[in-house]
């Protein structure tokens, strides 16, 4: 049984201009102790997917449909009270911007302690001891003294470590990390990623890693979900995504990875802008930007289908297998040539 099983998840926002379909029929599952990477451009619906699972969208203007079964209980139909018990305890979340995600007027120690006291029946002293333990685990020097510091006395990377400590403090089964390294500089990014990989070994949590950075996916994920315009367009184990990508959008993402080891004069980019989710294009939502576009792409939205020969690999594209394999091979050959 999967730890988290998401079925046909839809999240629509009511706005003054109409209904925005931010997530439109997403399916995936996360197994215990494994890492799922969700990749896509800004606005592709990857963050909203996770906020919906956590029940953190603004209720007033949100319509949610589908199921999100966590240990066989539907998070979307749960009472607010029961959901609060799960949040921060069984499922924890790390956010993109550590500079704004901690409350500026409370001491770090109190914010960590709050997370413990909300879910565990322990004394304040025990909660504080647990906070020290976690700060040490995430590599904050002089942890005991730093508990009494305020967020503004920490650097960005240190704050993200605090956020990770806060997320792991109740030993959650699932950790959702929403672009945890995007706001950090490159060296800090690597440190935080390594920290998360190591902590996953110690804590055994499953992770959903939301990112637009395929490099992060390659380093951390077991499985990958590629999202485009509120839909999943490709889904596969991580090595398949890099070995045999089966969807022009994924090719674009791979092609736009900067490489330091070659002298490519310019990056391949995906032309155009992601579509407005108020009025998504008819047919395949990627068709206005797709270099391989055919007539059928403008009329029929391709379903997510099993890729022949690759178990566990799903892709949504009308292109014939031959072309796809040829293009994927070209991309791989290019990458190998560059690497050698």
């Amino acid at each position, binding site marked *: 049984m999967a730890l988290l099983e998401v079925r046909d998840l839809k999240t629509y926002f009511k706005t003054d201009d109409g209904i925005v379909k931010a997530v439109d029929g997403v399916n995936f599952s996360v197994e215990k102790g494994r890492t799922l990477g969700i990749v896509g451009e800004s606005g592709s619906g990857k963050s909203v997917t996770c906020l919906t699972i956590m029940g*953190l969208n603004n209720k007033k203007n949100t319509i949610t449909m589908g199921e999100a079964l966590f240990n066989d209980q539907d998070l979307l139909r749960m009472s607010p009270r029961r959901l609060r018990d799960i949040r*921060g305890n069984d499922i924890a*979340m790390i956010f993109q911007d550590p500079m704004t995600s901690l409350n500026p*007027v409370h001491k770090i120690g109190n914010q960590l302690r*709050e997370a413990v006291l*909300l879910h565990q029946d322990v004394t304040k002293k025990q909660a504080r001891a647990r906070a020290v333990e976690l700060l040490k685990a995430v590599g904050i020097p002089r942890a005991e003294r730093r508990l009494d510091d305020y967020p503004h006395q920490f650097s960005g990377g240190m704050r993200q470590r605090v956020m990770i400590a*806060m997320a792991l403090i109740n030993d959650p089964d699932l950790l959702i990390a929403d672009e945890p390294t995007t706001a950090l500089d490159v060296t800090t990014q690597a440190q935080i990623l390594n920290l998360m990989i190591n902590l996953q070994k110690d804590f055994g949590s499953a992770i959903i890693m939301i990112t637009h950075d395929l490099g992060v996916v390659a380093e951390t994920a077991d499985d990958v979900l590629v999202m485009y315009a509120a839909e999943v367009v490709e889904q596969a184990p991580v090595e398949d995504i890099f070995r045999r990508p089966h969807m022009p959008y994924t090719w674009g993402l791979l092609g736009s990875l900067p490489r330091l080891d070659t002298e490519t004069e310019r990056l391949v980019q995906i032309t155009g802008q992601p579509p407005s989710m108020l009025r998504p294009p008819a047919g395949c939502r990627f068709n206005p930007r797709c270099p391989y576009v055919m007539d059928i792409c403008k009329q029929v939205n391709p379903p997510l289908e099993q890729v022949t020969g690759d178990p566990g690999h799903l892709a949504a594209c009308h292109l014939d297998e031959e072309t796809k394999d040829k293009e994927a091979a070209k991309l791989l050959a290019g990458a190998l040539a560059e690497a050698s």
Partner: protein
Amino acid sequence: MIRYIIRRLLWAVVLFVAVTIVTYVIFFLIPADPAARACGQQVTPECVARAKHYLGLDRPVYVQYAKFFGRLVPFDIHGLAHGHEPFKTPSLGISFSNRQPVNGIVVRAAPVTASLVFGGAITWLLISVPIGILSALRPRSLLDRGAMTFVLIGISAHPVWLGLIFLYLFAFKVHVFPLGEYCNMFHAPAGSSCAGPVQWFYHLILPWFTYSILFAALYVRMIRANVIETLSEDYVRTARAKGASESRVMRSHVLRNAMLPVVTMLGMDIALGLGGAIFTENVYDLPGLGRALVQSLNNFDLPITQGIVVFGTVAIIGFNLVVDLLYAAIDPRIRLS
């Protein structure tokens, strides 16, 4: 911290000198002659000359200002030279029109204004904090729209007009509240029989509301905006993701942050309260600083005007200092150095 306070106090002295000089200059630019007024109906040149000398108006302006300043400073350099006490009571001078010490006038009027301003501040907070928070939690609801209508009316209505309407409705038509007049909180002054906390409170209800409505309106709008803004902060989402209940999120994470600017504004508005008090005191005939100030201006009574300006300046400087220290205490990001 100590250095910060010392620096602030030194600036306060500079500010104080500047404000009093400006008041002096403005007063002497007004084409009025207090000496002629002192002579009454039969103005003769001799009388005016005598009155001028008596009031000290025949000396140059800077000498007059120096004398004023010398009286105000609590150190007696002259006395020290002769082996007396080095300290003396600061004096604001003597009124031109009735020869009473200004100190006494200010001391009698200040508690009235303080009652009005502090009670008013409590009133406007009691009105604006709940309305502001509730309308932020339910934007575009009936309550929110009602609150915004109140804000518009509150900002547009002048306190004098409001005061007259309140008096007409609640005191003249329906005899629920008294028609003006002020009652001391403790002992009754000569010529007045009413005193005591209950009477004090009862007589101030209408003035408090009149005085507060403008501020209440401004604060509803400010608190609503602050709470709405804070609700969308990332750290509020973090608190929810931790599993905190909505009421806990509100108390511990939203309000603490949303009220920070309110504290600053409150300090400034209380200090500036004298300005608004002028209208309310005159409508309700409250013997406070505002009414004394208007009377002194009508009588060209410079010492009283100057005395109230001095008192007001000191109050504003003092309040701003208190607010800054308080702000540093509640917002850890602010360090006084």
